[in-house]
């Protein structure tokens, strides 16, 4: 018997990307990215427990352009996942399911996570983290 290769659900390419679906998958993507960020957190803490020498090595890496790039991605992923996570907790409590509210909270998450990322880096550079 010949196996017919029919398209399977969800067959994502036929859907027009919408704010709701894009933010939904971004929650997952940032969650996985935060898993990589947790490796940095563990490296930093364990190095600090080993002593000043190891700690300086990690600090120097974080201050390099690659380290800053990773930390910037980490910061945005963290704030996005945090803000959208709070949105999810409201849904879990049964609030905010009306289409208008879903879009309003979605845009709020976008603005808040970008704003918090920018504010953190401005505060970081102002506080002596400059190049």
């Amino acid at each position, binding site marked *: 018997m010949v196996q017919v290769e029919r398209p399977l659900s969800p067959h994502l390419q036929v859907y027009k990307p919408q704010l709701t679906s894009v933010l939904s998958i971004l929650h997952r993507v940032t*969650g996985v990215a935060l898993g990589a960020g947790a490796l940095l957190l563990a490296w930093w*803490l364990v190095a600090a*427990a080993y002593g*000043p020498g190891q*700690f300086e090595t990690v600090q120097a890496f974080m201050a390099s352009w690659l380290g800053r790039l990773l930390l910037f991605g980490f910061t945005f992923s963290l704030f996005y996942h945090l803000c959208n996570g*709070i949105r999810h907790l409201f849904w879990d409590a049964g609030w905010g399911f009306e289409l208008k509210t879903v879009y309003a909270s979605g845009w709020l998450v976008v603005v808040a996570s970008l704003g918090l990322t920018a504010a953190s880096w401005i505060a970081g550079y102002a506080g002596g983290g400059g190049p």
Partner: protein
Amino acid sequence: MSHRTPAGRVRGLGSAQHGVDHWWAQRLTALALVPLTIWFCVSIIGLIGADHAAFVSWLSTPGRAVAMLLLVVATFHHMKLGLQTVIEDYVHGRGWNAALLVLNSFACITLGVACAFAIVKMALGG
């Protein structure tokens, strides 16, 4: 022989036999991580440029050490649950699926224990 009715046996557990445990633990750790993450971000911005001695002395107060421990426990528990869901959704080969789920558990628990030990060691001045 059990005298429980079939309905009584499955109530609240479902076909996977762990009921809503996974779902509930993910929400509980998420809720805990909201204040912990905000506290951590504010603290870490304040610590930019700090050397080793300054960092260890910052961590050494009981309140901060406990908050860091809670942050680490909630983070790695939440991470294990989240990555488990991603693996279950996207990795279909039976062998790969099982191998990655085991690796995920081991990795998250190892990282969490390593972080917790590091915090306790520094906080106690070892």
